[in-house]
């Protein structure tokens, strides 16, 4: 296995990385040793982006205390997310703050003929556009500004860290400004990496996968906003046409689209742009897993670093309706069903039951999960992560199209009915619901008793992984 570099461009890129992080936290398997996320977005205050960056940092913080080298069973947070190469996660886009686009290109300093050319390519509205919150759905602006990434020191650091067999994945939307313009530029800058960068040749020949997200949501009409979602389709057509003629550098290109059912509040960008999670983003994250599962022999490039067998993929569901596990294919269910369910149970227990359980249950006594632990930074971090996970699922369930595999708010006395369309099985035990959960934790804790206090955080996560694994296997028949 090798490293995977995930470039998320714009708000959609950030949201797909958020979904990917949630999948990895729940233990979904990916064929990569570690993942290096990079978010490209001039709008650093974008709510979607900052939320994803915080989530990634939280994941890394939690994982620091976990061990995966002892052959133990835990898979929560198993995949390493590496923020050492780029601790801020961002790939900075310089010189866009408090600047209009005409100032950025030095429009007033151009010769008369060049000014005329620029006026042909960019409308007055484009030239006067404030770029503080991105390119507001204008890929023609983005294609100029984002060209600077090739000279960015962080980009050069990232490229120089690429080793043989590492892979790259690029996430972008096609109907906005940043993603639509950033994707072709980024892939070009990787395939033609500056030869003064270390490992440039490896980067140029790396296997690259990408997902292009077609319109899947709309924005409410707002005369004060620069973004008009009615142009999404025409922009998409134009961009697809460009990609068809000019974009052949990706080894695997995934397309994802959905009927536009939901209209979000129309914010140009900034901290208010915080769209609810959507199933399209989850499926986009699954594309990354799929890309990593492809055998390297199908991702070869020729001498000019062009893919020999480029592949194009789409994703389908069983019927055009809201989605739960029963609407997904067997392969997808085999990847996500069990881990997502385990993580839901873990998160719900932390939220609803831990405080009333740890003082009386043997599993807590055996492993010293006492008051000190319940106030420790690690516990608070993982509890917050769990709450974020439940919020993410709730957003997916409230969006259009709904992805609602769980009934998150199910009462405690029906805990194991939380998976839609799965009737919990009978088990030979007087306990049910959280009492059964505690019983299984007690059972699993017996095998951990010898562990030292220094492993407490690791023991905690491992214990819950093992107990939830038993519970989903025996109560929900997920094997």
């Amino acid at each position: 296995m090798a490293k995977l570099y995930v470039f998320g461009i714009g708000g959609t890129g950030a949201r797909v990385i958020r979904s990917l992080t949630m999948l990895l936290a729940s233990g979904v398997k990916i064929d990569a040793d570690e993942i290096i996320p990079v978010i490209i977005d001039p709008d650093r205050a974008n709510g979607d982006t900052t939320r994803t960056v915080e989530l990634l940092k939280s994941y890394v913080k939690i994982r620091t205390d976990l061990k995966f080298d002892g052959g133990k069973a835990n898979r929560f947070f198993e995949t390493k997310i590496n923020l050492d190469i780029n601790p801020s996660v961002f790939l900075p886009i310089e010189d866009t703050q408090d600047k209009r686009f005409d100032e950025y290109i030095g429009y007033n300093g151009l010769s008369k003929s060049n000014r005329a050319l620029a006026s042909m390519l960019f409308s007055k509205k484009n030239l006067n556009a404030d770029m503080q919150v991105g390119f507001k759905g204008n890929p023609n602006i983005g294609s100029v500004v984002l060209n600077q990434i090739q000279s960015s020191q962080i980009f050069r650091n990232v490229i120089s860290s690429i080793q043989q067999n590492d892979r790259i994945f690029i996430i972008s939307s096609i109907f906005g400004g940043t993603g639509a313009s950033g994707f072709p530029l980024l892939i070009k800058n990787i395939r033609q990496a500056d030869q003064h960068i270390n490992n440039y040749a490896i980067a140029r020949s790396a296997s690259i996968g990408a997902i292009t997200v077609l319109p899947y949501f709309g924005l409410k009409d707002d005369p004060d906003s620069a973004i008009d979602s009615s142009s999404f389709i025409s922009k998409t057509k134009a961009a697809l046409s460009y990609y068809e003629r000019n974009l052949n550098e990706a080894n695997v290109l995934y397309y994802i689209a959905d009927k536009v059912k939901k209209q979000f509040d129309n914010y140009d960008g900034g901290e208010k742009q915080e769209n609810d999670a959507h199933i399209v983003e989850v499926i986009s994250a699954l594309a990354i897993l799929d890309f990593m599962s492809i055998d390297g022999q199908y991702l070869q490039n020729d001498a000019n670093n062009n893919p020999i067998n480029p592949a194009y993929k789409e994703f389908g569901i069983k019927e055009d309706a809201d989605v739960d596990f029963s609407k997904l294919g067997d392969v997808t269910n085999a990847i996500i069903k069990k881990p997502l369910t385990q993580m839901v149970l873990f998160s719900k227990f932390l939220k609803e039951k831990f405080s009333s359980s740890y003082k009386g249950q043997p599993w807590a006594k055996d492993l010293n999960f006492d008051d000190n632990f319940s106030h420790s930074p690690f516990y608070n971090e993982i509890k917050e992560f769990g709450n974020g996970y439940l919020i993410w699922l709730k957003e997916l369930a409230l969006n259009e199209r709904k992805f609602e595999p769980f009934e998150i708010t199910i009462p405690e006395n029906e805990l194991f009915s939380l998976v839609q369309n799965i009737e919990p099985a009978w088990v030979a035990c007087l306990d049910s619901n959280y009492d059964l959960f505690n019983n299984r934790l007690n059972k699993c804790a017996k095998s951990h008793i010898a562990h030292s206090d220094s492993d407490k955080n690791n023991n905690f996560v491992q214990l819950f992984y093992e107990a939830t694994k038993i519970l989903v296997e025996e109560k929900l028949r997920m094997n």
Partner: protein
Amino acid sequence: MEIFSKIYSWFVTYPESLYQFLSGLDCEMVEESNTNQFILIGFVTLFVSAMFCLLFYFVRHSKYNGFLSWFVVLLLDAVTSWLVGWEICKSNEGNIPDCFLYKPGTLDLQIDSMAYVAFGFSNTIVAVIWFLLFSVILKRFSTDCRHTPWKSIWPRH
């Protein structure tokens, strides 16, 4: 089976003549000329305590795994064992020879209904001892109660 007679001799809260009768002595104090009732009482009490203990440690809702739940089961065992002691004495009421029933040379009863009540309490003490003993043995094999009763009453900080 002398062990049961021995155990019950430690907690004689009832008339000694009742102890002698239950031990199987006759009026000449010849040992085991009659049935030793302590064998039956002892086995029944042992069995009852074992059953209550097994129920608590292995067949129980996991939320009832603390000291209070253990104590409630102990009380149930104690009450049941009192009834066992009282009932077996009571059922032998017509079989007690006069030499045990009356104070020597008088017609004053020395084994009356209060004697059965008192014997029931002795049996309760024996049952509690069995229950504690079984608790020590069984707790380590229990999933949900392996710290009950001792560690479960220690305060946790």
